[in-house]
């Protein structure tokens, strides 16, 4: 009979929580992508050894409490205003790494102007954009990125463009701006995609040392609670429905 002491040995270690992640229990629903992306950011901050040199800007949305989980200095923005805050922070402290962490409603609806103009100025910041096509925190309302036909509490029979407008491909739009240097769309639904997203996030952070402009990493994500699906089904639904409209890959890498 193997004792637990025989298993818990350094040579058997396959995963270790980043020391930049706090011990606070996350409020995210089981199956939510936020926890994975938080963990990746924490790992990157640890690996780049920039914990004392990084400032995060949290949004309004489910990740409004991101500052409870990643052990760095944070600034909590008003809904949609994170890129403006990040602009103020980075302009005054250009030596710091500054990133925003925003959902689709935050970045592509209420904060569209702040997002586009921060990117157009080429602010030397990193934007992490979680796109799950729904307002998770407020209970599943239609987002700017909600797909046509997709059900949300404010389009209960599905999004219709005649009434609700079209889903916005904001990332493609941002890639057109000369101020952005790296624009990519990733996902975290498989081990492979998590590794790819980590690579993308690392590059987006490292770009700040090159001062070439704004780096944006969109992570197409599930919201199994908002979508009213099991985590596994939500992943399948995302692959079948979200990926064809929001294809993964680099849109710009300069």
């Amino acid at each position, binding site marked *: 009979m193997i004792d637990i002491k025989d298993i818990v040995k350094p040579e058997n270690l396959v995963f270790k929580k980043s020391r930049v992640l706090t011990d606070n229990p996350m409020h995210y629903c089981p199956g939510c992508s936020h926890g994975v992306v938080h963990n990746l950011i924490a790992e990157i901050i640890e690996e780049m050894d920039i914990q004392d040199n990084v400032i995060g800007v949290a949004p309004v949305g489910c990740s409004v409490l991101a500052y409870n989980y990643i052990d760095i200095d944070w600034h909590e923005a008003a809904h949609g205003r994170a890129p403006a805050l990040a602009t*103020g922070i980075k302009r005054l402290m250009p030596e710091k790494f500054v990133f925003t962490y925003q959902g689709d409603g935050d970045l592509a609806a209420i904060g569209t102007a702040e997002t586009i103009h921060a990117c157009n100025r080429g602010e030397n910041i990193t934007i992490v954009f979680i796109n799950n096509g729904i307002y998770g925190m407020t209970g599943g309302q239609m987002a700017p990125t909600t797909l046509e036909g997709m059900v949300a509490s404010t389009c209960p029979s599905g999004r219709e463009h005649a009434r609700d407008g079209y889903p916005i491909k904001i990332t493609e739009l941002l890639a057109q701006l000369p101020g952005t240097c790296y624009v990519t769309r990733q996902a975290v639904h498989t081990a492979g995609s998590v590794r790819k997203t980590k690579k993308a996030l690392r590059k987006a952070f490292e770009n700040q040392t090159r001062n070439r402009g704004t780096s944006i990493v969109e992570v197409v994500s599930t919201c199994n609670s908002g979508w009213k699906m099991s985590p596994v089904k939500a992943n399948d639904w995302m692959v079948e429905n979200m990926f064809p409209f929001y294809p993964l890959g680099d849109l710009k890498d300069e």
Partner: protein
Amino acid sequence: MRELKLMKGNEAIAEAAIRYGVDGYFGYPITPQSEVMETLMAMRPWETTGMVVLQAESEVASINMLYGGAGSGKRVMTSSSSPGISLMQEGISYIAGAELPCVIVNVVRGGPGLGTIQPSQSDYFQAVKGGGHGDYKLIVLAPSSVQEMVDFVGLAFDLAFKYRNPAMILSDGVIGQMMEKVEFDEYKPRWTREEIIAKNPWAATGKPPTRERNIITSLHLQAVDQEKQNIKLQAKYKEIQEKEVRYETYLCDDAEYLIVAFGSSARISKKSVEIAREKGIKVGLLRPITLFPFPYKEIGAYTDQVKGILTVEMNAGQMVEDVRLAVEGKVKVEHYGRMGGMISSPDEVENALEELIIGG
């Protein structure tokens, strides 16, 4: 040695900011205050003091750049005029809630709506009573000369950092646009990184291993925590009310009547007092310099001495409500004011004193 110049109020406030060692200015053009950013851009302070100047895409963005910048513990300011200040109210409420120091200049124009580009004082309520959502107060200073536009930059920053509270300089199109002789102090150096961390240990400057992470936020999800924060804020406002009232009096010692006016209305009213005195009317002027904290007690002290009080404002009667609160019904208080960008003449004010207070 103080340097003497002839300048517009808007230009003067820009130069005063550079000289005071302000770290950042974020703004958006709007008449009648656009000269503030134009002057800063022309003076290129990033090449001398290292001050950052940035034109934002909107007032919504500029106040949020200010919010971010203020969280770094540096001295940041913005300026705008009434419609732009309305757009900033969301950010101002967050800054007050997160208890960050910064300076906001409002060169007031007539409203409501798009209104006019002419001077007004119709943003008194917005500045003093809130404007944005939630229970909060701004420290509000009302300059009545170009010199005070200069002097109040430093005062506003000192008070803002002393109390970790946003401060507003509530000016108007008269003070912003008129040219006057003005004296400047020598250039002060900006705070060093070490000074910022020592003075503002709360600032989000990057978390060293030696402290817990600093979180700049106005979010307290639990009602019990939010109430605690509200109680803390109210205690701070009470302290400000007790310690920071500033006002000026003119010929009040023997006054039988009092005019209360702030900003450019006080300039006009000073002349009205002189006209009335020539007629043998014993009237004095009390000019609140801080609108929050308002000189309630100081005005209330005149209820045993004067027979009536006239408030003069370039609005429909806003500060008059605070003056009535101050005198608690013991003395007659009336308002006289022009609106929509019209400016009272000293004679008009003097006539109003005779008609509304002495004869009324």
